[in-house]
């Protein structure tokens, strides 16, 4: 019998080791696996490389993980936001490495890793400083740069519904990076708002098929990062549910 559900957040993240490369779903304040991020702070794995579109908001979730000192490097497309003080400060004080990747290249590098593609050529960054040092090739008169797949040890993803096979749905635009990140990690760990009986998600409504998912934990009332930021919430180790 296949049962990918785990009963606690602590169990869910227990496989994460020091030095892991971790994909974290979300865009802005939407689709972030905040509870998994907080449990990873308690778990304590260090020397991590995180991949997300942004670099955290306020002092919760991804930002709290950065502030905890467990992260060596951030790979993202847009680290600046109105609430990115934690990353901004660490970057200026040179306490964290940054790799800036155009958003579409970031998405495609993740997709390529999940699809077993060894790299791909794109026109994005041609003529810009971000193309420096990269292999080039010309197709149909246009110049392209070579980009590598972005494999990860772990993906932490927030979904809406899940079942014990790991089939997933996502809420509204919170889908963003979730489905492609599920495909690209050795171990994909999902927090779902609700775990439903097998068959309750109609096959044509499954967004991410369970083959891409390893562990599912139910988090019935996921925190709103927006509300936490507005209320000046600061997460520190030991506060996870």
């Amino acid at each position, binding site marked *: 019998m296949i049962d990918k559900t785990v009963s606690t957040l602590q169990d869910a993240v227990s496989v994460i080791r020091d030095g892991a490369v971790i994909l974290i779903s979300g*865009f*802005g*304040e*939407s*689709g972030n696996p905040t509870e998994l991020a907080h449990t990873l702070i308690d778990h304590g794995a260090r020397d991590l490389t995180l991949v997300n*579109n942004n670099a955290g908001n306020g002092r919760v979730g991804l930002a709290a993980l950065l502030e905890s000192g467990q992260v060596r490097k951030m790979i993202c*497309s*847009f*680290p*600046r*936001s109105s609430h990115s003080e934690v*990353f*901004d400060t660490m*970057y*200026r004080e040179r306490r964290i490495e*940054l790799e*800036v*990747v*155009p*958003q*579409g*290249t970031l*998405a*495609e590098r*993740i*997709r390529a890793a999940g699809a077993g593609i060894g790299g791909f050529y*794109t*026109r*994005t*960054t*041609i*003529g*810009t*400083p*971000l193309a420096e040092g990269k292999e080039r090739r010309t197709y149909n008169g246009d110049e392209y740069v070579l980009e590598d797949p972005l494999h990860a040890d772990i993906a932490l993803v927030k979904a809406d519904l899940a079942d014990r096979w790991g089939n997933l749905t*996502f*809420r*509204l*635009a*919170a*889908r*963003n*990076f*979730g*489905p*492609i990140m599920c495909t690209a990690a050795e171990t994909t760990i999902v927090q779902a708002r609700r775990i439903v009986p097998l068959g309750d998600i109609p096959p044509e409504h499954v*967004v991410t098929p369970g083959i891409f998912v390893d562990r599912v934990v139910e988090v019935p009332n996921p925190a*709103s*990062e*927006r509300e936490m930021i507005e209320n000046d919430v600061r997460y520190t180790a030991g506060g996870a549910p």
Partner: protein
Amino acid sequence: MTEMLTDRLTRRQVASRLAQDIGDGNYVNLGIGMPELVANYIPDGREIVFHSENGVLGMGPEPGENEVDYDLINAGKKPVTMLPGGAFFHHGDSFAMIRGGHIDICVLGAFQISAAGDLANWSTGGPDSVPAVGGAMDLAVGARRVFVMTDHNTKKGDAKIVEECGFPLTGPGVVDTIYTDIAVIDVTAAGLVVREKVPCLSFDDLQSRTGAKLHGAETCGDLVAPDVG
């Protein structure tokens, strides 16, 4: 350079002027900031589908106070609504739309635009600035047409349209048309051609506010401020 320009367009008027050039049925991506205003001014009778790179097609107007849902946001992380017919999709698909040439028009802001249509809009190259690129480079090369919406000059009066960009590029030769508070300028193989300018400025005045050679003195029309306040 400092005299009052009485018929300079407001940002909303630039947005409205630009919106007139978006055709019925176009799929359009609006960049963060000023370009977002364009959605408010689509001419009656045209059905336009707005794309947002986080994975949304068919965005509607801003939500009412009780409709706000932070799982339904645009690329600028602001709450939006969905129109009937709208769709959600993941980032792989979203950038396939952008990089695969499926977006008809994208509207971007600019720090600088060169005579050859080079765009610089992501970094001022300062040593202390945190580099952040987002989807701008993908949009610049992937969208079929790139419209730039910008003030013609910086607050200090410097030209934003220049022979060569001094800031790091977002993409080379990508801009099709520039919409500013005083002119509409097409980037062509023959250089920058002024399509419209505000009537109170002579062509020479416009040239003096621009850091690159302008063409079209004989053919350019009037840029009339749309009635949108």
